[in-house]
Every structure is written in structure tokens, then in C-alpha cells.
């Protein structure tokens, strides 16, 4: 934090984009700033709204060289931007050096990354020594934008000033085998509204993925374990879309956006991530909602919106006649599903806080349960 611990005494802040860089379309600039503010909004009680005239708490300028605050910019390179700690007047404001080449991607200086860093200053954070933190003072062009998230140091810092977001549950997961201490923003295992991003078996255990975390249900332990995904697979993104295990390959495939990874135990296999269109999906398909492999029939099902595709593991090709409507072949479980896995010959579909046990032979739902029923809730 800054000397004297300056912070905002209110939780709703305004920002105003006073002028725009010519490097990017205005919409791209707006979007970068919205996304950058959202990164902080997600971990604090702070909210932001844009105003178009008058004095905002956070005034945003693009400028070159000297422009009145006696801290001139220096042309292309070196200093990219700077921002002032919370307070009236120039305090809270953010200045971007318009001699940089601002870009949405990494072909120039990424506006989102720099903006997110500078907004951290506007909210009262100074710099961190952790090179993986957003508030590290040196720009890192290698940051993976698709997997961007605040480092724990960033979160701890901002929450020391403003506390956690109001929607955070104070209840962390319980149990003697718990491996991640409860922290603000952590999903609560027995929350009746809990939904899952993805569910998969792995070597006889069942993994339930949620945000940055997963629960690991093993027959050997009475309590599910709770872990950060990054603890086991540091290169995987959070918020997975789908996951399934192919038992005879000892491989779990996980999906996020238009990429998928192959995991063997804790190792991410070489050559991944691959494009999800590799197995034969149409080019317009953007993500997979859920997937499950039927070991006996050597078929893998991919669920996308209200449709599903079937992949033949023997011929390694997508079967003809697909996609088909989920509602036609899996009545009552759809129209969309969040996650699915197979156990005891049943498919277990997850939709929001509900779980549907589906008998593929009888082609009917045999039980409707709470989604966290597997976690002994």
C-alpha cells in the first residue's frame, strides 16, 4: 500500500475516459478498462460505473511527455503508465503514455494488463515483489491473457483495504483432509446452490471442478479433499468447461474455450493444449459444456448447448448423424448440462444445483439429486 494507507471511503466509484488513444478502436479501449476494473470488482465490495462528463473518482488520460503533473512520460518504452493513490483531484487518476503502441493482444503493449495494474494503484495498492503478481512493477509480455487472474498477493493486498466481495460465503469446505484454507471467494462445498464446471473420474476417484478449485472424492477418505487446480496442474486454466476420463488410456481430457489438454496423473501431456476442432467439431463451435466417455461401448459424448456429438474411440472419429438433440436421447436432463460423468453404469448429469442419474439402457432418469450429493452434503 501507499504511505498513510490511502483508500476510498466508499464502495461505488466512478471513472471517466477523458480521451482515447488512436492505436485502438474506442470499443476496444472501453472493453479493456471494463475488464480491468472487473478484475478488482470480483474480489472486493467495490463497484464501478462510467461517467461521460464532470469529475470522476478515476480520471483516465492518454498523454505524451509532460502534461502538467510534473512527472513527464518518456516516449516509447520504459515507463508505460502511472496512477495515483485514492483521493481527490489528481489522486486516483490514471495516465497512459500514448507513445506506446497500445494493443488488445500482445503485438504491442497490452492495454488491459497495464490498465488492471494501474487501477490497482488507483484503489490503493503500491507494488509487489512477486513477479507473477499483477502489481509487480515490470510489464510482463509473456502473461497469458487467456488465463489471466490476480495473484493471491494481489487479492490479499486489495482485500486488506476493502475486504472480500459481499457474495463470498464465509463457509469454506470442511474436513480434516482439506488442503486449501477457506478464503473469501472460495466455493462452499455444501452450498445448496452449488453447481459444477466439470466432473470427471480419475484413477478411481471423482473430481468436481469449480472455478479455480476442485474437490477430490476418493473411496479411501471419508471427507472430500479440496485443492487449487494449479496445485496439481499449474499450466491449466481455471473455470474449466468439461472433463472426462478415458480409462484404458489412463488419460483425463479437460476443456476450456476452444482448447483441450490431456492429463495423465499430475502430468499435462506434451503437445497440448490442442484445438477442440481437432476431433471433428464444426468450426463455429466455441466450447464444450460437458463430456463423458462410455468405457464399455468405447464412445465419448460431447454436450454443447442443447445438442450432443458422439465420438468413436475405436475409429477415433466423430460419428455420422450427429449432433442430435439432448432432449431426444437424454429426456429430462437438458436442455443444457454443466457437467457429466459415468459411475456404476449410470450417467450423472449436472445442471445448476441439480443432478440427474440417467440409466443409458432404460434411457430414463432414475433419480434427481442435489449436485453436491457426492460430497456427502
Amino acid at each position, binding site marked *: 500500500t*501507499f*504511505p*498513510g494507507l490511502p483508500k476510498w471511503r466508499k464502495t461505488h466509484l466512478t471513472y471517466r475516459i477523458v480521451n482515447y488513444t488512436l492505436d485502438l478502436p474506442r470499443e476496444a479501449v472501453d472493453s479493456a478498462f471494463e475488464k480491468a476494473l472487473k478484475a478488482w470488482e470480483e474480489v472486493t465490495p467495490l463497484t464501478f460505473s462510467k461517467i461521460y462528463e464532470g469529475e470522476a473518482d478515476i480520471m483516465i488520460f492518454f498523454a505524451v511527455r509532460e502534461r502538467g*503533473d510534473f*512527472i513527464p*512520460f*518518456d516516449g516509447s*518504452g*520504459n*515507463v*508505460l*503508465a*502511472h*496512477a*495515483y*493513490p485514492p483521493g481527490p483531484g489528481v489522486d486516483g487518476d490514471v495516465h497512459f503514455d500514448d507513445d*506506446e503502441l497500445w494493443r488488445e493482444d500482445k503485438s504491442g*503493449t497490452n492495454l488491459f494488463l*497495464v490498465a488492471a*495494474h*494501474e487501477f490497482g*494503484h488507483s484503489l490503493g495498492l*503500491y*507494488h509487489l*515483489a*512477486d*513477479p507473477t503478481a499483477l502489481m*509487480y*512493477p*515490470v*510489464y510482463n509480455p509473456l502473461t497469458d491473457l487467456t488465463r489471466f487472474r490476480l495473484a493471491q498477493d494481489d487479492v490479499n493486498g486489495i482485500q486488506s483495504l476493502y475486504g472480500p466481495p459481499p457474495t463470498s460465503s464465509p463457509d469454506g469446505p470442511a474436513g480434516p483432509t482439506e488442503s486449501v484454507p477457506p478464503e473469501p471467494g472460495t466455493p462452499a462445498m455444501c452450498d445448496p446452490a452449488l453447481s459444477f464446471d466439470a466432473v470427471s473420474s480419475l484413477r478411481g476417484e471423482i473430481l468436481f471442478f469449480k472455478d479455480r478449485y476442485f474437490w477430490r472424492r476418493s473411496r479411501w477418505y471419508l471427507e472430500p479433499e479440496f485443492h487449487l487446480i494449479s496445485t496439481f496442474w499449474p499450466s491449466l486454466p481455471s473455470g474449466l468447461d468439461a472433463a472426462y476420463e478415458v480409462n484404458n488410456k489412463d488419460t483425463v481430457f479437460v476443456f476450456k474455450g476452444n482448447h483441450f489438454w490431456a492429463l495423465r496423473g499430475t502430468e499435462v501431456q506434451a503437445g497440448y493444449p490442442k484445438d477442440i476442432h481437432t476431433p471433428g467439431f464444426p468450426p463455429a463451435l466455441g466450447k464444450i459444456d460437458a463430456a463423458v466417455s462410455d468405457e464399455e461401448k468405447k464412445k465419448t459424448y460431447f454436450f454443447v448447448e442443447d445438442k450432443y456429438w458422439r465420438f468413436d474411440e475405436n475409429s477415433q472419429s466423430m460419428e455420422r448423424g450427429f449432433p442430435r438433440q439432448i432432449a431426444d436421447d437424454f429426456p429430462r436432463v437438458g436442455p443444457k448440462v454443466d457437467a457429466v460423468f459415468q459411475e456404476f453404469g449410470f450417467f450423472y448429469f449436472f445442471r445448476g444445483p441439480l443432478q440427474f442419474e440417467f440409466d443409458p439402457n432404460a434411457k430414463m432418469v432414475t433419480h434427481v439429486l442435489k449436485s453436491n450429493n457426492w460430497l456427502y452434503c
Partner: protein
Amino acid sequence: YPLNGAVREKDPSTDLVQVHLENYYDLAKDVKQCVRRRHSGPVVKKIREMQKCLGLEVTGKLDADTLAMIRRPRCGVPNVGQFT
């Protein structure tokens, strides 16, 4: 007497380091000449402070990693010392 002493006198990194320490680590102007005497107390202290801040190995010396980091693009958050 170092054989490359003359070259070192012209080493542009001294100016770079001086400006960097002044801008971001509150190196007082009146000790800036000390930068040319690399082992002077205030400069070593500031270099150590900078290395600690950047998560580098704290040696107090201008090693290659430190110089490389100084040259990388960064945030120029206004020197907070001036606001206290």
C-alpha cells in the same frame, strides 16, 4: 588498475541506473554522483532496495539480471516519497 577502466568511464548504464534510482527508489539528487562510484553506501543501499522490490537476488551490485530488469518497460507510479 583495470585494463578497461577507460571504457567503464563511458558506460551508459551508470546514467540509466542513476535516473532509474532517482525516479523509482527516491535516490536523493545530491548523492547521484555516487552512482559512478558503484560501491558507495547510498547507491548500494538503493540497488539492494530495488533488487528486493523486483524479487531479484539482493547483491547490491549491478549484475546482468538487475540491468536487464531496469531496461524493461514498467509502471512509473509517481514517487510516493514526494507525497508523504
